[in-house]
Each structure stands twice: as structure tokens, then as C-alpha cells.
């Protein structure tokens, strides 16, 4: 492995990335002391920019690192990501444009603004904001794990230890925090376009590289007994687990604050709809990357890196997380490997920025302002800017604290899903019905969150690792689906027979 070329290309492209991040403040210049200018890029994103921005939300370390790792470790079960993204865009097409229209009419900037206005309930608004903020923490942590995997591979042949990796990560975050502070969502959007170009180059290059180096896939697959399961397809016992992972994740994705930010920053309802309908094209890349979890078994040099106990700095065992980075450095020429590694690296960094912006908005607008209503818009933006930096470092601290066993990093994203899916009735279903009453939704929300957390803790303690499925007589079920079922039960039953309290006329 020609480390100096790889690192050189990586650093050069990282410099371009940083330039774009800062330059974005001047791009389509607006007053960045205004909330919607900083957090929603002035709400002027057209079809393609919205496509790239929302695509950037989807194409994260989840796609590059977590899913290939899980497919490598457990085979077909984690291919659930494919039906998940397929369904999630249909859900987005039903709820997204309608949410866009209502928020535009009412001047709302966050999902929590909408819930508060829709039900005339400060309590529900604050609760929505808190759930949004917390659910993103594990998701950001996942991005960091992805970046660690890239740094581990890149520095593996040097004598620099794990502390250099940690230091590099902190530096990358400082740079990111600086340009999100100055450019807001504009910085994230411009860098998202850059990141997406690199990512497509990476996906295609790795696919071609792998296919040319493995020879006859038919023979290769016939000798492969995927680890753990002994079968290439899904074990019948895992069927419900597969389906509930897909369905639960599909309903959860667009409820995340960063996804709602993406929806609201579109310029027009029609452009939003068109760009959402084209996003499955993006998903194809995800499916191909998931497949790398199996294909890596046919590339001995890459497999050696994945199974090595030492890469990642002694105690840090990254295992399957290295699948795609390892393929990049083994099947690609060094310069292209540098491009690919940077693509995967900023593939974690950009979404982390978008997520932290969304969290910061919720904190200032829907929590701080609720208790201190007098603050000026200028102060509001200033708090948001600082909060977005704090949230990034909070997630970084979380990862450093939890240490090194993240082979099943996908569970971090699934954990976020267990929490955020609880907003389904108040944020999405309420767009089309006046049926739900605020007290019922509040009780449902608390019941859903409690059920989710109790099942999470129970399963994780009894298995000794972060788990997001609960074993039932018909097989493992995704905790998010069980918990949102409890939530819906309470929300529906308690809403029955109450008189209409609709505040917002729905059309």
C-alpha cells in the first residue's frame, strides 16, 4: 500500500472540501444572522440541490461502513437496508411536500414548531424537540465511527498509534465546526455536492475494481458460506426481523430533524417532490455497497485487513467496519484509493454537520426560546451556531467514551430510529387527520419512548451488546416497531370520543 500517495490525495481533497465549506457563506449571499438563512440556506434549494442535500442525509457512514460491516458479519439480514430505502421515499412523497406547504404558510422552521402550532401545545413542542435532539446523538456517533475506520486504514502502515487517529478526528471536527459556524446549511449543501461526486466515483471504482479482481463470481459464491448463518439468503427465523427493520427504519428516516431540515430547505413543493422521487437512484449505490460485505470475502488482501486484529491501534478491533475502506486500498490504484477514502471520510463528516445544525435549531428555537421568549433573532442564531459545535463534540466524546467495540455500528442508527419513530402520529399522521388529541399524543409519546427504552435496555443487558430487536415467539422484532405500536395504541384510544380541537385547518 502506497501510503504517502493515498495520504497526499486525501489531504489535497480535504483542503478543497474545507475551502468549499467556508466559501459557501458567500454563495447566494444572504444575511446569515437570520435563522432561516443559516439553518435552511434561505429556503432556496432547487430540485438538484435538494436532491444532493437529502441524498447526503441518506448516504452516510451508515451506508459506507455500518451496513457493509453488518452484511459481512451476519449476511442477508442486514440487506434490509434495501427495502428500507425503497419504502422510505414513498413515505417521504406522501408527507414531505404537505409538511413543506404548511410550514411555508405558517413560517415554521422545525418539526417541533409545526407540532406546537398544530396542537397549540408548548409541552408537545418541547417534547418533540428533545426527542429529535437525543435521537440524533447515536446517529452522529455512527458517523464518527465511520471516520475512525478510514483513519485506521490510512494510518495502519505507519507507526503512528491510535492517539494520532484520535487527534486527526478532533482536528477534522474543529474544521467542520468552524465552517458550519460561518456558513450554516449552505456550507453543508456545497460540501454535500462535492461529497456526492466523490462517493459516486468511489462506488463505481470499487465495484469495477472488485469485479475485475475476483474472476468468476458464480464459483466464488458457490464456495462461500457467509459467516454465522451458513446460508446465502435469509434464514426463515430472521424473516420478521428483516421486515420490521425495513419498515421501522423507513418510517423513522424522514422524522429525523436533519431530514425535516432537508425538506424545509427546498425552494418549492414541486421541486421537493421531484427530487424525492429520484432518490431511489441513490439507493442503488447503497445496495452495491451492502453487497461489498459479501464480495470482500473474495479479495484475500482486503479480507486480511478486515480480519486483522491489529489495525485500528492495538485494542481497537474494527473488523467488518473496514470492509469498504479495505477494498479501496487493495483493489484501487493509490491515488484513487485516496479519493475513495476521502469520500468515505466526508461521507461521515457532512451528515454529522447537517445533523448538528438540526439539533442546534431545535435547542434554541424550541427549548431555549420557550423559556426565554425575549431573545432577539441575532442571539437565537448565535446560540444555534455555538450549540451546533457543542453537539458535534458531545457525540465525539460519546464515541471516545464507549471505546472500540463498534463492529455492529448499525445498531447506533437503529437505536436513533427507536426514539425518532415515536413522532410518527404527531408530526406525520396529523398532516392528514384531525383525529388525534394533544393529551393522547403526549401520553402515547411517553408510553412509546418508555417501551422502547425498556426493551432496549433489557435486550442489551441480556445479550451484552447494543441490540435493537426483541425476541418474540415469531422471531426477533425491531424494537422501534413494537414501541411505536404501543404509542399508536395510546394515541388512538385516548383520542376516541374527544371533541375536535383542531387548530390548523388541513386541506
Amino acid at each position: 500500500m502506497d501510503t504517502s500517495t493515498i495520504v497526499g490525495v486525501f489531504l489535497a481533497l480535504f483542503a478543497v472540501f474545507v475551502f468549499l465549506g467556508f466559501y459557501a457563506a458567500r454563495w447566494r449571499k444572504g444575511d446569515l444572522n437570520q435563522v432561516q438563512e443559516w439553518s435552511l440556506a434561505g429556503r432556496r434549494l432547487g430540485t438538484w440541490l435538494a436532491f444532493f442535500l437529502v441524498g447526503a442525509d441518506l448516504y452516510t457512514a451508515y451506508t459506507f461502513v455500518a451496513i457493509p460491516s453488518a452484511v459481512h458479519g451476519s449476511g442477508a439480514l442486514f440487506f434490509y437496508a434495501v427495502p428500507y430505502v425503497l419504502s422510505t421515499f414513498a413515505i417521504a412523497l406522501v408527507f414531505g411536500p404537505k409538511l413543506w406547504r404548511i410550514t411555508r404558510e405558517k413560517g415554521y422552521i422545525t418539526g417541533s414548531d409545526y407540532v406546537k402550532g398544530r396542537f397549540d401545545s408548548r409541552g408537545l413542542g418541547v417534547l418533540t424537540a428533545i426527542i429529535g435532539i437525543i435521537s440524533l446523538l447515536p446517529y452522529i456517533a455512527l458517523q464518527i465511527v465511520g471516520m475512525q475506520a478510514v483513519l485506521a486504514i490510512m494510518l495502519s502502515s505507519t507507526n503512528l498509534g491510535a492517539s494520532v487517529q484520535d487527534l486527526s478526528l478532533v482536528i477534522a471536527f474543529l474544521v467542520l465546526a468552524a465552517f458550519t459556524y460561518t456558513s450554516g446549511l449552505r456550507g453543508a449543501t456545497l460540501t454535500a455536492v462535492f461529497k456526492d461526486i466523490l462517493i459516486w466515483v468511489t462506488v463505481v471504482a470499487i465495484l469495477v475494481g472488485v469485479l475485475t479482481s475476483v474472476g468468476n463470481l458464480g464459483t466464488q459464491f458457490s464456495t462461500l458460506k457467509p459467516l454465522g448463518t451458513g446460508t446465502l439468503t435469509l434464514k426463515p427465523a430472521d424473516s420478521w426481523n428483516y421486515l420490521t427493520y425495513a419498515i421501522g427504519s423507513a418510517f423513522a428516516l424522514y422524522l429525523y430533524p436533519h431530514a425535516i431540515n432537508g425538506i424545509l430547505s427546498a425552494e418549492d413543493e414541486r421541486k421537493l417532490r421531484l427530487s424525492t422521487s429520484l432518490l431511489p437512484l441513490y439507493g442503488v449505490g447503497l445496495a452495491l455497497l451492502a453487497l461489498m460485505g459479501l464480495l470482500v470475502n473474495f479479495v484475500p488482501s482486503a479480507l486480511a485487513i478486515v480480519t486483522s486484529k491489529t489495525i485500528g491501534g492495538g485494542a481497537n478491533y474494527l473488523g467488518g467496519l473496514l470492509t469498504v475502506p479495505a477494498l479501496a486500498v487493495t483493489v484501487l490504484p493509490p491515488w484513487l484509493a485516496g479519493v475513495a477514502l476521502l469520500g468515505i471520510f466526508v461521507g461521515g463528516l457532512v451528515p454529522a454537520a447537517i445533523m448538528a445544525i438540526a439539533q442546534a435549531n431545535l435547542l434554541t428555537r424550541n427549548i431555549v426560546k420557550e423559556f426565554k421568549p425575549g431573545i432577539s433573532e441575532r442571539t437565537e442564531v448565535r446560540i444555534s451556531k455555538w450549540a451546533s459545535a457543542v453537539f458535534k463534540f458531545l457525540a465525539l466524546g460519546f464515541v471516545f467514551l464507549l471505546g472500540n467495540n463498534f463492529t455492529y455500528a448499525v445498531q447506533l442508527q437503529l437505536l436513533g430510529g427507536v426514539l425518532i419513530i415515536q413522532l410518527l402520529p404527531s408530526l406525520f399522521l396529523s398532516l392528514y387527520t384531525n383525529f388525534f388529541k394533544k393529551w393522547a399524543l403526549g401520553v402515547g409519546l411517553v408510553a412509546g419512548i418508555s417501551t422502547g427504552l425498556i426493551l432496549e435496555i433489557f435486550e442489551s443487558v441480556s445479550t451484552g451488546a447494543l441490540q435493537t430487536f426483541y425476541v418474540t415467539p415469531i422471531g426477533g422484532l425491531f424494537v422501534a416497531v413494537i414501541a411505536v405500536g404501543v404509542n399508536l395504541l395510546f394515541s388512538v384510544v385516548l383520542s376516541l370520543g374527544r371533541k375536535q380541537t383542531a387548530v390548523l385547518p388541513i386541506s
Partner: protein
Amino acid sequence: MASLRISSGRLFAYFVLLVVPSLIALSLPLYNVVDPTLGGIPFFYWFQTVLLGSTVIPYAIFSWAENKRTSKREGMP
């Protein structure tokens, strides 16, 4: 804001365009098999990948139809 009532025919068309792809994607017994393979890749993996890519077509048709309705509504007094 004026709203256009949605006809049952249109609702059915939307169901086909938006819901049916997901129903196929979640019909595990349909694709949880190894054969026929494509270039060596088991059916389970390639079928779902192809299905995902081709879903752009119904989604884009939905978006085109719904966008026309939106434009019509905005054009109303």
C-alpha cells in the same frame, strides 16, 4: 386555501405507484432464493437492487401527476 378533492380513481393510481413497490419489496418469499443468479450474484441480492433502481419510474410518475395538481390548485383564485 382551496383544495381539490381527490378522486377514488386517482387514489387507486397513487396506491399502485407508491404502495405496491414497497409491498413487492417486503414480499420475502418472492425473492428469498439463490437461483436464478445474475453474474453469480444470488437472486436475493440482485433482485432487490434492481427493484430499488426501477422504483424511480412509479415514483417519478406520481410526482409528475401530483405536481400538476399542485400547479392547478395554485392557479385557482
